């Protein structure tokens, strides 16, 4: 499912999504069409542009939130012209899995974009590094202050939705080093040892300042 008003870009997106091994059930150009198409095709994943006709403001976000409510199993990847962490926070507050929020220009890096697509479709998250950076500006006077610069980097990459292996590759360190950093982060954020994955989500949520 693809909702994007620019025809050129929509065609490109269809190609990339198909390259990633997905089948495109429908492509639409506005939020109303998106909602109708979701009802009709019940897709696993919807790629949605934030700014769409008629108002060209946040129609995509509102449509995505309404899809979240009516069909929580639909994974959502939002594409935006600019970073607006409130949109991301709104989405994450509704549900934390199967959500992505990327800058439009990221689709140019086809491999990374495909990776993000798969991650979101599998119930993970994919947040744009710029979104994460903005959230970091906001939450700079809370327990996160205790983190070291490296730990912040690791947490930011976690928030982007990357796995330990992905973080290790990005920072050019070993996976065990990443695991060590994550443990230290969890300890500093006062997250008790329980279910490891759950704590990871909580840490990211605290980082993003939503929920928790």
């Amino acid at each position: 499912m693809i909702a994007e008003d620019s025809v050129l870009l929509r065609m490109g997106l269809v190609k990339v999504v198909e390259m990633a091994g997905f089948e495109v059930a429908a492509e639409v150009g506005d939020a109303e069409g998106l909602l109708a198409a979701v009802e009709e095709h019940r897709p696993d994943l919807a790629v949605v542009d934030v700014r769409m006709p008629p108002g060209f403001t946040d129609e995509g976000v509102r449509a995505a939130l309404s899809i979240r409510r009516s069909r929580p199993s639909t994974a959502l990847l939002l594409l935006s012209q600019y970073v607006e962490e409130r949109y991301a926070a709104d989405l994450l507050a509704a549900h934390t899995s199967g959500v992505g929020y990327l800058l439009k220009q990221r689709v140019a890096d086809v491999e990374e974009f495909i990776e993000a697509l798969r991650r979101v479709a599998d119930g993970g998250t994919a947040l744009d590094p710029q979104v994460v950076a903005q959230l970091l500006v906001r939450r700079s006077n809370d327990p996160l202050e205790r983190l070291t610069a490296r730990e912040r980097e690791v947490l930011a990459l976690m928030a982007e939705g990357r796995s330990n292996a992905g973080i290790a590759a990005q920072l050019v360190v070993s996976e065990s080093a990443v695991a060590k950093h994550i443990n230290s982060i969890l300890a500093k954020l006062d997250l008790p040892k329980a279910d490891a994955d759950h704590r990871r989500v909580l840490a990211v949520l605290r980082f993003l300042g939503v929920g928790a």
Partner: protein
Amino acid sequence: MKIRTRLRRALTRLTRDASFLALGAPLHLLMVSLLAGVYGLLWGVIGGADDSAPIALGFVVVATVFCVPALTVAQRWRFRRLLGIDIPRPGLRRPWRQLAYHSLAGMLFGTLEAVVAVLIPAGLALSLTTVWVYAIPRKWRIEHPEYATQAAYLSVAGLLVLAAVPYLAAALVRFESEVVPTLLGRSREEDLVRRVEDLTESRAGAVDAADAERRRIERDLHDGAQQRLVSLALNLGIAKATLVDLPPEAREVIDAAHREAKEAIEELSGLVRGLHPAVLDELGLDAALSGLAARAPLPVRLRTDLPRRPAPAVEAVAYFVVSEALTNVAKHAREATRADVTVTRLGGILRMVITDDGLGGADPGRGSGLTGLAQRVRSVDGTFRMSSPVGGPTMMSVDLPCQN
């Protein structure tokens, strides 16, 4: 030829001045005579002269009162029609001043005007004395030769008067046209107030227009060029990912094109951000500033306290200020490791304080960045203060008025 044009011009001017003065004399003297009537009747009433005197007094007073605005209108017409001087319409404001003008200044001007107006026929009559004398029978003239000499003197005097009349008339017209607009029109203070209002309005219009233009450019770039570039980069990316069996040269070309397209997108979004980001319109200063802070090359702590959104022009200036200030910090503040941005609304003032922990020594007099910033702040009547002692820290404080 030259002399004829000069003569014609002088004559035109004389006609104009003469008619101006001739018209002024009755207008001015009408008021004077009305006031004289009031004065005389008042004495009559006090002296108990006549039964009809109080009634006549009432009539004359009413006529005087009604004459004030009418005479003002007439004077305005006279100045505009004959001299091309537009006296601002005082309307019914300051009636005492108008009354004073018509009675006191009117007495002076009316007399002077009457004198100048009378000088013209008098001069003419005098200068023609010789002609009269020659019109008389020759015999009488020979019997009284002294009259012929006197007539010659009188003629010369009349010609002198006639020669002086244009200068006198011009001087009086100049005198009147300098004094009357200030007496009858608006005072300088009122003029300044009006002017400041006009200027404030037109400047606000200019600021708004520039803002609208910035917004339009931003939207055009966003919805046009940037979308196309993204789709170009995407297609190049697809080509790169799918065409794996190309010769290495072709791959290199595609790689380079892909890279360039991505860089162009980055540059374009940088440009748009400097102009007027869409997020500023849609979600306000808070959201737009957090984007700025996140993209700054050094850590920025941002605190905003904005219960209500300021006017769009103020938001735009505020955004520009923070954007420029952070750029300055990143570019020029030596050894700065972090910056603090605080935006608060205190009643009708939006206050922004931007500090950094660099070595200081910034001078608003130098550097076009700071000058442009100060200018933009002044464009909405804001104040700009900066303290940057050598050794640091640097603090910039900007207050923008926002009444709404």
